[in-house]
């Protein structure tokens, strides 16, 4: 029996609700990590809003301009170990949120030509995921008494996003560009698990996110006509280090 597009959309909404159901579990993971590092247990509200206050600044940062003034930096100079990785992750997630927003804005402005609904849906859903991921990492940072990361990974932004996004002229370019960011995020999480993170809570948080970034990559590869699952093992190629500048 075939289903209509409306029914399919309803199913998607259900799935979206399901993914929001996972947030409480992430709150628990953050609480566990906080306990491991001797921090104050975060409130559910504090976890859920996470990077929410940062998103406005992030959106500005994505579109260039004077982001150093408008984005408030959590900074990493005073962080080390797992918390430095958490800050890096939050910065990368914020950058992904901002970049998808820039893509959506460009699409709305007609700068990318005809934009299929499926592509817009992908961008909005992936952006929502990255927003949740950033909130998770920032919830952990604030649990540890550290400032949340309100800005983006400036190293990646200046070296990759700004010059790369300038060359995005259509949805295919946008998909390829997004694929690069998703692969970097997944590689960074895997590198964190394999080479940097020490607390089990931190490892659990990272492994709950890395496979989702890889799902984003698989769908992008599929749409681009490329092998959707190109390797039997995820790699750390392209992983970003905690020394990346945030702001």
């Amino acid at each position, binding site marked *: 029996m075939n289903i209509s597009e409306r029914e*399919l959309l309803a199913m998607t909404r259900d799935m979206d609700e399901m*993914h929001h159901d996972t947030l409480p579990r*992430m709150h628990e993971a953050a609480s566990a990590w906080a306990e491991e590092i001797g921090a104050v247990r975060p409130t559910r509200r504090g976890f859920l809003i996470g990077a929410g206050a940062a998103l406005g600044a992030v959106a500005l940062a994505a579109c260039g301009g004077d982001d150093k003034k408008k984005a408030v930096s959590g900074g990493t100079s005073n962080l080390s170990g797992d918390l430095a990785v958490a800050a890096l992750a939050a910065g990368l997630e914020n950058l992904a949120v901002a970049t998808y927003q820039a893509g959506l804005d460009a699409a709305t402005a007609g700068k990318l030509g005809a934009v299929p609904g499926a592509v817009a849906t992908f961008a909005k859903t992936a952006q929502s995921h990255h927003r949740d991921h950033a909130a998770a990492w920032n919830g952990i940072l604030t649990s540890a008494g550290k400032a949340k990361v309100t800005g983006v990974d400036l190293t990646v932004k200046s070296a990759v996003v700004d010059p790369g996004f300038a060359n995005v002229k259509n949805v295919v370019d946008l998909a390829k560009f997004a694929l690069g960011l998703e692969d970097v995020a997944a590689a960074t999480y895997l590198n964190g698990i394999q080479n940097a993170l020490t607390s089990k809570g931190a490892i659990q948080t990272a492994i709950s996110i890395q496979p989702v970034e890889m799902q984003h990559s698989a769908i992008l590869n599929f749409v681009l006509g490329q092998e959707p699952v190109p390797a039997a*093992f995820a790699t750390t190629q392209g992983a970003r280090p905690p020394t990346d500048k945030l702001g």
Partner: protein
Amino acid sequence: MLSEEKELGLLIERSEDTHADAMRATQASLTEVVERAEERRAAGGSDPDETEAYQANRRKLLTRGLAAAGAVGGGVFGRSLLDMLLSPAAAAGMDVQAAQTAASIENLAIAVYKQAAGLPFMKNIAAPAGPTVVAFVTTTVAQHTDHAKAFNAAATRLGGKAQTGVDKPVFDGVVTPALPTLKTPLDVVKFAAQLELVAAETYAAETAAVTDKDLRNTFASIAGVENQHRAILLAVAALLEAGKPNLIKLGPPADQLPDAAGSVGFPDAFLGTSNARPATEGAVA
């Protein structure tokens, strides 16, 4: 029983025979950890207390039951559990079982994919969906084979035994009941997606639970790949359900895709662990 089911049953039977032979082999060269594991198996399974300690740790990781863990840690029994939990031998023994279980899950996935690909209605899917699905299955089976090798290598490195059989509890509890219900390509694709979810969540749980760093790295490098398999299967299922099999091909015309196709492949922002299988269930040798 369908002939395909019989073939799958024979496959499983042969695998179990292989394991039975392996279990009779001399274990003289195994390490103390492995000897303990063998003793447990010879006694009919894992030591309940040790397993409970490990599972308690997993539950803590999986459900964040920190308050309960703290209460247990305060008593004499709790101290005993904690000591067991922290015991390198106990941890290594459980790592072995986790690796063996993972290998048996991979073996199960390989068997199910191969069997499913041979079902008549799977062989007759019209192009472009048919060749796309065949290519996906071929690649996915190869990747699961690589995963099985990696987990078996980890198991043997840690002193365990390579697994050639399937995860029998999953086979008996999930696969066997499902087989008669698989009547269409959509049924098969949805079922495969569920198996991939089980694998991904099991490996995610073990990534945070095992103590051996190399084994953790192996779990971490595979969990995401299983989740990618699931993403593609979910997308294919959605297109089948939408009556658009003509769009099941690499590089589909994006302007013809249903809007919702842009998100059905990744329904959750976080990979959970509620479908994770126990570390001990698949270790049969």
